[in-house]
């Protein structure tokens, strides 16, 4: 069952968070943000806020309670925010009206680029470079969504409570890595590998990661063929995967 609060957390802290990587990986997005200096706060009732900063040709997204921003976008409910992500509602700007132009023009183009990669056409997937960006962004979306589900969804909390304290490294060979840290049943995700992980999940290629995350490959079969290698405290991964399996339901 989809909980709108959880969905909003995922949309903000996992889907929209991808703007960071989009601006690094996609030339068009990279060009759009050149010379821009604007910090946008996403303020959604009942969920933790985030600030997206465009500066020095980079985008950085932070989950923060800070109000230090150029522009504040207010959403009166998680549903309101979720509808904005679907393109059916507009945000309510409460600060920084002089940046409306950036929001309407540049940010809208960035959002279109993000949609282009996250809802790929067959044509996009046939292009190797575009498919690679699609996989990286899909992977980040899925893995950053895990803590949001683990910390907020009813079943997600149950499965998270069964994960031993410690860190799980998730890595695509020759590709990006992320680590998820569990502490007393609460999870947190960060980019890169941790040096002290207790469990490890390694996809042998970007194609395998793409296939598993897009549902065209069965992860259990991939473990057998060695395309997905797991080791260490396997119950941490088992329970994490049960949360990962919930992600698709929220992004549908």
């Amino acid at each position: 069952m989809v909980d709108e609060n959880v969905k909003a957390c995922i949309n903000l802290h996992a889907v929209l968070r991808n703007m960071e990587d989009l601006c690094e990986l996609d030339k068009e997005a990279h060009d759009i943000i050149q010379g821009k200096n604007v910090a946008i706060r996403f303020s959604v009732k009942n969920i933790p806020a985030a600030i997206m900063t465009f500066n020095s040709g980079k985008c950085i997204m932070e989950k923060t309670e800070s109000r230090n921003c150029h522009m504040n976008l207010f959403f009166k409910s998680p549903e309101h925010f979720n509808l904005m992500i679907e393109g059916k509602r507009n945000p309510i700007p409460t600060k920084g009206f002089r940046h409306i132009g950036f929001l309407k023009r540049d940010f809208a183009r960035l959002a279109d680029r993000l949609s282009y990669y996250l809802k790929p056409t067959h044509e996009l997937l046939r292009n190797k470079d575009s498919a690679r960006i699609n996989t990286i962004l899909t992977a980040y979306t899925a893995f950053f969504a895990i803590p949001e589900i683990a910390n907020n969804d009813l079943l997600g909390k149950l499965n998270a409570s069964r994960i031993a304290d410690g860190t799980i490294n998730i890595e695509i060979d020759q590709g990006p890595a992320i680590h998820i840290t569990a502490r007393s049943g609460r999870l947190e995700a960060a980019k890169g590998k941790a040096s002290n992980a207790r469990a490890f999940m390694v996809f042998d290629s970007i194609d395998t990661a793409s296939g598993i995350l897009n549902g065209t490959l069965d992860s259990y079969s991939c473990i057998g063929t060695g395309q997905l290698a797991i080791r260490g405290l396997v119950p941490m991964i088992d329970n994490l995967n049960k949360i990962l399996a919930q992600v698709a339901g929220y992004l549908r």
Partner: protein
Amino acid sequence: MKTYTYPQSQELFKRAGKVIPSGIYGHLGPSQGCYIPTQAFPFFLERAQGAYMWDVDGNRFIDYMCAYGPNVLGYNDPDVDQAVREQMQIGNCTTLPTAKMIELAELLVDTVDSADWAFFAKNGGDVTSFALMIARAATDRPKAILFKGGYHGVAPWAQKLGYPGITEADTENNIYVRWNHFEDLEQAVQQYPGQIACVMATPYHHPIFEDNQLPEDGFWQKVRKLCTDHGIVLAIDDVRCGFRLDTRGSDHYYGFKADLICFCKAIANGWNVSALCGIDGLKEVASSVMYTGSYWLSAVPFAAAIATITKLKQIDGPQTMLEKGKKLTDGLREVGSKYGFDLKISGESSLWFMRITNDDNLVLHQEWVAECVRRGVFFTNHHNQFINCAMTDADISFTLEVAEEAFKVVKERHPEIGG
């Protein structure tokens, strides 16, 4: 020592994956079986005999998983197989049951200390679920006390909320308590007066991934009294331990008497039958519960079970396996310590659990197990291992040689290990 490769297994696995979910599902598969790395393990078998199995690539392994328990006398035991052949010529799955069913029930009642009757099914989970239903029917109460980490099969009630396919309704009557914490049970009984039908437990605590725990002195006696005082059915899941500790039942081994006791695995040396045995006071209730299956009264597995139990009693199989297990595990611990590894052994020696404790993430253990498997000793990483009666001292010596070389290889890879 030569190390194995598995090209045929890998090919078959790819073929299987096209038509079977996961390729090989469940605990015999590389995923749930925790084959780490999968390249170190065979997936498919060609044949098995005694304590050994040969995979489809022609590699021979001494098999310490024993089909996860059923292989108790040795694969293709001649006495069991003779009984099977004779029964196959008479009949197996038939419209009416044969007298073999009565013979097996009589044998169990004569053998198992707490048994006044026996009921047959196929898998361990069939009889744990039946035990729960009987307890509910007998008490007209809904709830069951279970121990955290305990395993009683894959029926929805035995799984956890949050797992695929499990709803809140499936598990809402389960109360989980900590093993060896009698106060937890007392508290649960106080918290749910008149609502607890059953305490279900394994004879000792043997979860996966964790060190096994034997019952503390007096624990079972206190649990027995608590159940009796409050009209709660005490059901023992002896599916994994059964006939490896005591042919009279693991409750007898630990000095108490269960109301219901579930057997499977070792009962028929690999032939498919499970049994629920119970006290006289629950016999009529067992009759009242609607519970049946197409193959449950087939005669061939009954013949196999009769031959297996009879032989286990004749040779004192449980004692033999406990002694062999002790010799093997003492040896494993010793060779590990030579190379600086602390191999912790827990549980009972006929189905011991082991793990290397030098790190906090089981990686060293997984590497060592993989090196053992590559050299012909089939362990799995995080489940009980099993002894069978066909294992010899020579097999144990071979195992220790392999284990030592595997420790050496892992030590070379991890010079930071002391010793």
